[in-house]
């Protein structure tokens, strides 16, 4: 009995001592246990979240990626240190990467916020500018016989502009910015090519002006009739004694920009001509007609030069039978190079013209700059 009691006492003492030893060891381990920088890590995670909310993925993607990479590095080091024996853990690098991630996250947030604000305004301004440019193109260049690549390029620009506007309406400003850049590039290319084509055409302006002024002065001096055609304006004037007697809308060949180079080019010629024949209704299929003396000497010289320079084939003829005639009023350029009028207008022109009446056909009576600025003023 006594021995049992003694044994029980020994066991209890052993257990208590063991517990105390455990507690002491545990207390020592607790005091020595290294603390990972959890607050810094939580701050870094928060920085990533806040930057994402500010759409840093769109407006500051590189900074956001750097922030995430720094945070990931902190986590990797944390896992590595946690796997070590507690006395050899060192969270210095964890702390470093977590702090760097927080700083970088703040930079991403600042950049994204600033960019979002600026893109909101810049896309609005750019959209307005490009819409104005499109409107000007439609006014000035679209009515011209532009080549297909220029038209396609412009129309594609207009479509992308619509996509940019739709993106802005959805507040996808970064998408709008990308689309506006593309639309702007295409639009400027189209305007440049169209303007270059027109400017190139207008390099003959001084020559046209001289023809018209000389003819008008002669009409005034000699008291005779003059027919003057302005291709750009699509107008025909009949002068008598140097004064305008009649003024009509006309239709030309579809490729009216430029002089007539050969038969079948659908171009209306430019130059100083005269009426060589008046054709009454029974002598023409176009109601009434005034045959002019195309080709004149200038036309022949140009034709020969172009053949010699191999700009046109020898097999192409220079063409002829260019008239001022009726059956016009269709509202579009449809002739093979002739100048067409509505029949009632043709009646008047026919009655005022005679054989040898001068006919001067020019590209434009107004300089290009005035035409463009007049179109702007008409808005």
């Amino acid at each position, binding site marked *: 009995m006594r021995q049992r009691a003694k044994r029980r006492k020994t066991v209890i003492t052993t257990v208590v001592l063991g517990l105390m030893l455990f507690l002491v060891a545990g207390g020592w381990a607790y005091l020595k246990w290294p603390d990972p920088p959890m607050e810094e890590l939580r701050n870094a995670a928060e920085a990533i979240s806040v930057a994402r909310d500010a759409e840093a993925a769109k407006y500051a993607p590189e900074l956001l990626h750097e922030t995430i990479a720094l945070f990931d590095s902190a*986590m990797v080091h944390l896992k590595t240190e946690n796997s070590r024996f507690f006395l050899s853990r060192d969270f210095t690098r964890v702390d470093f990467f977590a702090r760097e991630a927080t700083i970088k996250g703040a930079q991403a947030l600042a950049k994204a916020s600033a960019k979002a604000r600026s893109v909101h305004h810049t896309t609005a301004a750019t959209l307005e500018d490009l819409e104005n440019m499109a409107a000007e193109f439609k006014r000035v260049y679209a009515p011209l016989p532009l080549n297909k690549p220029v038209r396609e390029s412009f129309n594609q620009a207009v479509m992308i502009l619509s996509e940019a506007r*739709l993106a802005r309406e959805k507040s996808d400003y970064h998408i709008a910015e990308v689309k506006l850049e593309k639309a702007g590039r295409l639009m400027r290319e189209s305007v440049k090519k169209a303007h270059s084509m027109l400017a190139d055409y207008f390099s003959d302006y001084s020559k046209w002006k001289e023809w018209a002024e000389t003819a008008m002065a002669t009409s005034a001096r000699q008291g005779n009739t003059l027919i003057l055609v302005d291709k750009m304006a699509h107008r025909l004037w009949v002068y008598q004694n140097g004064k305008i007697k009649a003024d009509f809308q006309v239709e030309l060949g579809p490729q009216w920009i430029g002089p007539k180079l050969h038969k079948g080019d659908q171009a209306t010629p430019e130059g100083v001509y005269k009426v060589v024949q008046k054709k009454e209704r029974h002598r023409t299929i176009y109601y009434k007609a005034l045959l002019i003396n195309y080709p004149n000497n200038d036309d022949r010289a140009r034709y020969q030069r172009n053949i010699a320079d191999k700009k046109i084939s020898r097999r192409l003829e220079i063409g002829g039978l260019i008239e001022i005639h009726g059956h016009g009023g269709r509202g579009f350029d*449809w002739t093979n190079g002739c100048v067409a009028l509505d029949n009632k207008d043709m009646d008047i022109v026919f009655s005022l013209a005679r054989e040898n009446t001068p006919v001067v056909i020019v590209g434009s009576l107004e300089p290009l700059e005035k035409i463009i600025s007049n179109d702007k003023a008409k808005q």
Partner: protein
Amino acid sequence: MKNKFVLGFVMISFVVLLSSCAKVPQAELDALTAAIEDARANGADVFLPTEFAALQDSMNAINTMVEEQKGKLFGNFKAVSAKVAELTATAATVKGNVETRKAEVKTEVDNLMVEVSTLVGEAKGLVAKAPRGKEGAAAVEAIKTEIGVVETAISEAAGKLEAGDLMGTLDQLKAAKEKVTAITTELNDVIAKVKK
């Protein structure tokens, strides 16, 4: 000998008792990672970007909690397990919502494709019927070129659809519809004026 055994048993029991809460719910964490990746693969980052970003942020928070507990003398993963379960359910919901949104967008795209193609056909018909305007043949050619550009946009949109870019297809078709509607409206106005 017996005392040493008892002592050892007591100490081991104590350690086991205190460490019974220190198991990382690794299987659940792996399942959660897979669920988030699944949502992303289904297009959650494209169709529900805000919800997906929230998933990623919550995952970061959970990983941080896990490492915090792993680093402790006596870690407790009960709260982590609860968060993991909650986020796994959220990820499944997001994935479901993505499917719903994709279906909505696909329906809208399919309808738009038919609508725009029909409008292009109507516009071509109107061009043939339209009286010639003052701008002349150049304007008619311009309208035909505009219609051509819309047709090119429809082809490009079909290509994007095939490549799986639903949102890109939708945006392009909306712009094409706007363009061809404008062309049709202009042509109808001209025809109406002439009839008067």
